[in-house]
């Protein structure tokens, strides 16, 4: 117990200025990439997270197919909504899992002991969560295109999806770190996340809906701008408050 405490204190920013011979501190980017690499290699060995997200996404699309009677006419107006609802649901599944893995096996304590800034952990987890979301999206999009005979592979649309996923993963990582430490855990994450991430989902639906309807890029510039604003603000906030969320 005592060892753990001293080590935790060592990793705090106050002791950053020690000579490097005592505490070796890797650079910010290097440390972040190390966490991403850890998550990715663990995932690519088991595929348990991506496969769960993927199967879940396809099931959600099937449910929507029957719930909304996705015939040609309806499809045009609801495609972006269906896609984003699917991404949001699958996203919470992944976020929950990636954080509870850390919590269950005590890995989070290990990460906190590392002699790096706490925000490194946030960015590492956020980037790997984003990568998982993007992988799932990269498989869901062609499947959806194939099933409904609509071309979703357009550069502008992919850009919107990337921006939306960044915002969702940024807030989601922060909130899943919080929800993993509560009594209700998995149940709490979507409840906490959806209302706060509402701007991301709505702006993404608006922008991608407009693009799919074939309007000019300038007409959907407003939701895209709001997406960028949201991404920047929430990454900055998460960066600032993450320390308070993992403090023991």
């Amino acid at each position, binding site marked *: 117990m005592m060892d753990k405490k001293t080590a935790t204190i060592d990793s705090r920013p106050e002791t950053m200025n020690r000579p490097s011979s005592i505490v070796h501190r890797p650079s910010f980017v290097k440390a972040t990439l190390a966490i991403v690499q850890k998550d990715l290699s663990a995932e690519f060995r088991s595929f348990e997270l991506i496969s769960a997200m993927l199967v879940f996404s396809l099931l959600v699309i099937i449910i929507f197919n029957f719930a909304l009677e996705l015939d040609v006419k309806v499809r045009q107006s609801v495609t972006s909504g269906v896609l984003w609802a699917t991404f949001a649901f699958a996203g919470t599944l992944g976020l929950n899992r990636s954080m509870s893995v850390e919590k269950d096996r005590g890995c989070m304590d290990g990460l906190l002991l590392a002699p790096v800034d706490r925000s490194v952990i946030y960015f590492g987890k956020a980037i790997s969560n984003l990568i998982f979301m993007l992988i799932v999206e990269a498989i869901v999009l062609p499947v959806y295109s194939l099933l409904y005979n609509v071309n979703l592979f357009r550069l502008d649309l992919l850009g919107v999806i990337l921006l939306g996923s960044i915002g969702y993963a940024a*807030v989601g990582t*922060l*909130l899943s770190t*919080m*929800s993993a*430490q*509560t*009594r*209700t*855990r998995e149940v*709490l994450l979507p*409840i*906490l996340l959806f*209302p*706060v*991430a*509402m*701007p991301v989902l*709505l*702006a993404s639906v*608006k922008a991608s809906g407009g693009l799919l309807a074939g309007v000019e890029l300038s007409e959907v510039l*407003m*939701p895209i701008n*709001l997406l960028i*604003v*949201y991404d920047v*603000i*929430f990454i900055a*906030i998460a960066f600032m*408050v993450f320390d*308070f*969320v993992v*403090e023991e």
Partner: protein
Amino acid sequence: MQPKPLILKILDVVSIIVLAVAAYLALVFAPTEAVMGQVQRVFYFHIGTAWVGLLGFVIAAVAGILYLVTKDVRWDRFEVAAVEVSTVFFFITIVLGSIWARPAWNTWWTWDPRLTTAAITELIYIDYFMLRQGIEDPEKRARFGAVYTLLGGISAPITFMVIRLFRTIHPVVIGSQSAAAQGGFSMTSDMKVAFFFGLFAFTVIFIDLMWHRIRLGNLEDKVEQLKLKVSM
């Protein structure tokens, strides 16, 4: 237990009086609106409760930041009090708005930006209590609560901006385009008296309730500590 301070006792009485006066002004004194008739009178309380509701959420976000900076538990109690009182007032706002909307828009509810944002904001603060309930350690509970009020306080205005891209029919009574929206109107001077007094009355009531809730928070804390002592 601390005795109730005299100022708080006076404030209790004042709250009841201003509520009665505000009700009189809204229900009797203010002239009946020409197009909508009596139902427009709901407006005076609708704005009053909305004002203190939003005020409380802003106060909570500020108190949350102050808590994170100072780690002083008093800011946490302040924040809980603000969120709790505001959540109730904001709910009243939504209900009163619905009562007005039924005759004015011919529907209880519509997915207008303001209504939708109001619903989402209310949900964020209900979530706030669910989050707090799930954490046993009081210090961690306070930290997470502060972070969540901060996130909620920033996301709500962005939500409003985003939904405004979709559509709006909610009237803007204060400001330039007064009577343009469906159900909009411009106020006469008597209406303005009732309107501003309503704002004042609800501000007084809000302060009174917050004060009570903070005192209650202090007592809760004491009980928790006594419980700990007994169990040890």
